[in-house]
C-alpha cells in the first residue's frame, strides 16, 4: 500500500465524517421543533412553560393521547382527513397524468398558454377565492361534503402535479410508445399500460405533494365543512383551542403529533421513489 493511497483513505474518511457531522447538525435543527412537540405532548400544563426547559417531563402524560382519541371527535376528524386526502391524491394522479402526458407528448395549439397558465394559476391568493368558491359549492349543493374539499384541493394541486408529471414523462423515451402504437394501441392505452408503470417515482412525488396539500389545508376545510362529523384534522385541532379559556397544550400537541404520522409513514414507505420523482424533467431540458 502506497503512502499516497493511505493518506487518501484517511482523507476520505475524514471528509465522510464531516459530511455526517454537517448532516446531523442540520437534521437536528430541522427536527428540533418536532421533538419539542412530542415532548410537550407528554406534559401536564404545569410543566410546559418552565423557565428551565425540560425535555422529559416528571410526569409522563400518555393520557393526553388517550384523551383526544376517546374524549373528543379526533378519530372522526382523522377519518375525514384521510378520506379527503386520499381521494384528492387519486384524482390528482388521474388528472395530472392525463394533462402531463398531453403536454409532454403532443405539440398542440395552446400548449404554451396552457403550460404558462398552470404557473399563473398557482399565484392566486386563496383569500380572493373563499367567498366565490363557497357560493359555487353551495349552488352545487356540496357544502359540508367530502366532494367539496376534494374538488377544491384537487384544483389547487393540479398545476404543480401536472408540471411534475410532464417533467417526468419527458424523461421517458418515446420509442416504447411508438412500438405500442404501431401494434394498434390507442393513446390512452399507451399511457396506461406502457408509460405509467415506468413513471412510478413521478407518481409517488405527485401523490405525496397532493396528499400533504390536502392534509394540511385549513381555510377551505373550515369554510366548506359545517358540522362536527365532517371537520378535518386541521380544523379540529384549531377547535381545540379557543378564546377565554385555558388550552391544554399537551392534548393539542398530542393531536398534532398524531396528525404528522400519515405523512411520516408515507415518506418512510415510499422514500425510495420520492427523490427521483421530483426531477421535473431536468435531464431532457
Amino acid at each position, binding site marked *: 500500500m502506497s503512502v499516497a493511497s493511505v493518506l487518501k483513505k484517511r482523507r476520505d474518511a475524514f471528509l*465522510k465524517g464531516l*459530511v*455526517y457531522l*454537517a*448532516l446531523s447538525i*442540520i437534521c437536528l435543527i*430541522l*427536527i*428540533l*421543533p*418536532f421533538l*419539542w412537540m412530542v415532548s*410537550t405532548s407528554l406534559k401536564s400544563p404545569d410543566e410546559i*412553560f418552565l*423557565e428551565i*426547559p425540560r425535555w422529559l417531563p416528571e410526569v409522563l402524560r400518555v393520557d393526553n393521547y388517550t384523551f383526544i382519541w376517546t374524549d373528543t371527535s379526533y378519530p372522526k376528524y382523522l377519518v375525514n382527513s384521510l378520506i379527503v386526502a386520499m381521494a384528492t391524491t387519486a384524482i390528482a394522479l*388521474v388528472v395530472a397524468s*392525463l394533462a402531463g402526458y*398531453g403536454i409532454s407528448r*403532443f405539440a*398542440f395549439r395552446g400548449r404554451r398558454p396552457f403550460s404558462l397558465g398552470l*404557473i*399563473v*394559476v*398557482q*399565484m*392566486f*391568493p*386563496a*383569500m*380572493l*377565492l373563499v*367567498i*366565490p*368558491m363557497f357560493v*359555487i359549492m353551495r349552488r352545487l349543493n356540496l357544502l359540508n361534503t367530502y366532494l367539496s374539499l376534494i*374538488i*377544491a384541493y384537487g*384544483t389547487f394541486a*393540479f398545476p*404543480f402535479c401536472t408540471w411534475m408529471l410532464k417533467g417526468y414523462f419527458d*424523461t421517458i423515451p418515446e420509442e416504447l410508445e411508438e412500438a405500442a402504437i404501431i401494434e394498434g394501441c390507442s*393513446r390512452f392505452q399507451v399511457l396506461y399500460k406502457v408509460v405509467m408503470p415506468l413513471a412510478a417515482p413521478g407518481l409517488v412525488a405527485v401523490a405525496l405533494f397532493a396528499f400533504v396539500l390536502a*392534509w394540511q389545508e*385549513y381555510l377551505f376545510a373550515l369554510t366548506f365543512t359545517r358540522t362536527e362529523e365532517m371537520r378535518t384534522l386541521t380544523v379540529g385541532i*384549531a377547535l381545540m383551542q379557543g378564546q377565554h379559556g385555558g388550552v391544554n397544550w399537551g392534548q393539542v*400537541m398530542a393531536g*398534532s403529533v398524531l*396528525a404528522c404520522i400519515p405523512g411520516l409513514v408515507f*415518506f418512510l414507505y415510499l*422514500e425510495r421513489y*420520492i*427523490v*427521483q*420523482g*421530483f*426531477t*421535473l*424533467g*431536468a435531464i431532457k431540458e
Partner: protein
Amino acid sequence: MKVTHRIKKLSIPYFFIAPCALLIGSILLYPLARGIVSSFYNVNLLIPVPPKFVGLENFIRLFRDSSFWTALTNSIIWTVVILIVQMAGGLGVALLLNQKIKGRRFFRSLILIPWVIPAAIGAITWRWIYAEQYGLLNFILYRLHIIDHYKAWLAEPSFVLPAVIVVAIWKGIPFVTIVLLAGLQSIPQTLYEAARIDGAGAFQMLLRITLPLVRNIALIVALLTSIWTFNHFETVQIMTRGGPGTATLLMPIYAYKLFLESFQISYASTLATAMLGLMMVLAYFYVRRLM
C-alpha cells in the same frame, strides 16, 4: 376518411388536458375573474349599499396607502431573503445528501419532517421556542454565551422579521432540497469521472459541471417557491399577526385584514389583484430565462 382521422388525431391532446383545464377553469378562473372585477367597485360588506362602479379609485387609494407600501417592502424582503437562503441552503444540503454515505436514506427522511408538520402547529411551536422566558432558543444561546441576557425575539422590531423568516425557511427547505437532490442525481457520474481524470478539483467540478446542469431545475423550483413564499400566510399570522406594530405586516396578512377582518371586499380584491400582477411580473423574468 382521412379528414376524420386527422380531426381525431388533432383533437386527442385536448382530451388529455380536458379534465385539468375544465376543473381549473370552472373552479378557479370564475372566482378569480369575479375578484378582479370587484376591485373596480366599492363593495364593503359592512355597508350594505348597492355596489357602485368606481373605476380606478381603489387602485389610486392603494397607491396612496402607507400600509400597502409597508407590506410590499416587508414582502419583498421576506421573499428575496427566503429564496436566497432556501436555494443556497437547499443546494448545500442536497450536495451533502448526494454523497455516498451510509444512512443517507435515513437523513433524507428526516429532512422532510418540517414539510409534514402543519404550518399552524409549526408556528405555535416556534413561538414557544422564541419565547423570552421559557423558550429553548434563549436557553441555548445564553448557555453558549452568545447572548448575555434573554431577548424577546418576537417583540423587538429589529429581530422579529428575521425570526419569522427563519421559520419560513425551516418549513420550505425540505422541498427545495429534495428537488435539487433529484436534479443532482440526474447528472451522469461519467461527467465527474472524466473531469477527475482531467485533474479538476471539487470546486471546479461544482462550478463547471454541477451548477450549469441543475440550472434549469433550480430555476423552476426557485420560481415555484417564490410564488408560494410570497403568498405564505399562516406562519406570520399565527406567530405575530403582522406585529409588533407593522414590523411583519406582509401582503397576505394585509389582505387578510382587509378581506376577513374588515370585510372591505373590493379594496381587498384590489390588493389581491396587485399581488397577482406583481407575481406575474416576477414570473415573466423567470420564464424568460427558462425558455
